[in-house]
């Protein structure tokens, strides 16, 4: 699946300033791995022990992946995978 991964401003220092990265992946985990292949420093910024850090939220077309299958959530062609900080609100 060809999907777009959206990178928040706080992480663009490790993606050469890129805010949107086109990758292939059947699941959220695969799509993120494809992004990490291009920008290795991003991996340790948002993951820990193979999972997402606890203050990282990931959405597929606006839906929090924790309401689906987490990193196993399946993707469709053209999906947007959005990474956002989880420390806002309230």
């Amino acid at each position: 699946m060809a999907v777009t991964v959206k990178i928040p401003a706080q992480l663009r220092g490790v993606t050469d300033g890129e805010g949107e990265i086109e990758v292939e992946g059947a699941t959220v985990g695969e799509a993120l791995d494809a992004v990490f292949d291009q920008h290795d420093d991003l991996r340790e910024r948002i993951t820990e022990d193979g999972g997402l850090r606890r203050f990282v939220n990931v959405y597929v077309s606006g839906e929090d992946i924790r309401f689906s299958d987490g990193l196993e959530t399946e993707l469709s062609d053209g999906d947007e995978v959005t990474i956002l900080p989880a420390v806002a609100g309230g």
Partner: protein
Amino acid sequence: MAPEALVCRECDATYPLEARYVCEQCFGPLDVAYDFSDLDPAEARRKIQAGSRGIWRYADFLPFAERPRDPLEPGLTPLIRADRLAERLGLRELWVKNDAANPTHSFKDRVVAVALAKARELGFTTVACASTGNLANAVAAHAAAAGLDSYVFVPSDLEEQKLLATGVYGTRLIGVKGNYDDVNRLCTQLCETRPWAFVNVNLRPYYSQGSKTLAFETVEQLGWSLPDRIVGPVASGSLFTKLGRGFSEWIDLGLVEGDLPTFNGSQATGCSPVATAFAEGRDFCVPQRPETIAKSLAIGDPADGPYALDLARETGGAIDSVTDEEIREGIRLLAETTGIFTETAGGVTIATLAKIAGRGDIDRDECVVAYITGEGLKTLDATRDGFEMHEIEPTIEDLEAELERAGTVSV
């Protein structure tokens, strides 16, 4: 005394005091760090007592080099000894901090006053927020008072009273078709493209500092002493954790002697990600889709959930949840025993207080403070079916007949 830097709560990375809220190293939340090295506790107390009649009396503990100008100063709300409520619950010393007695009738005036002062200092001309209602009221009002433009984002199905009490101030009120977590996600994204000060997104480290003033006032109003236990609501967990920070700061600096109180948090069962994590022994929250009458607490993905869990566990407290029916009973119990009419969030707090008192968690000699964070007139639907109105003709005979019919003793 001055704020020094923003510091990551997870990895201790530091950043300058700007409009930023996320650590670029680990994505953790940023918090304000202060330099209190020249603080003399006795002098600090004197300065506070000679200060203004609101939160700015605590300006030395807020993130400003100098006390800001504030046209709508909140704070110094009543701390009321609630003997009749205590008696009903089998407690000895119970206090109710009625924070509905603020300019827009909730504790949110405190955090917004701090955030807007910081927004002006940083040069913003437009402020914004993601709100479950009370924050919307406060941002709209304080922006109006300060002459700033404002955008207020809320779930479109909010209580009508909260929409009306926002729109009246002339803000741009945006009703988002979704729940609070959708609103919050949208605002987090907007933060990247709009030159606005989102009080609870990019200004959140400063905004949250305002909640410490609730702890400071409690200490001062108890005659410079600490309660043994506090009971308060948990939505994002920001108020709850910053109450802890306020007490800790003053204990560490020697303004008050004693131990951090036991922290009891309360949530509605229909939106209880933190209470559920507490019950299951987890240190993280699994998000929920809220379904409760306590809309002001309806945050399914609480940003400070992990820290609220830590605080409850470290102090020997708990985070409980109560049903919508218990919330309505809590509102009535507080009203009938104290004369204070609270919104659903206060119903959650009082219902939780009753629950933990009922299960014997509270020693009889404890000094307990319950935090009432909002006004009952904002959530009128929650009380609609709780009583009967006796309608009569304007005659004594009809009154007597009606009271007899209703089984009420006439006088």
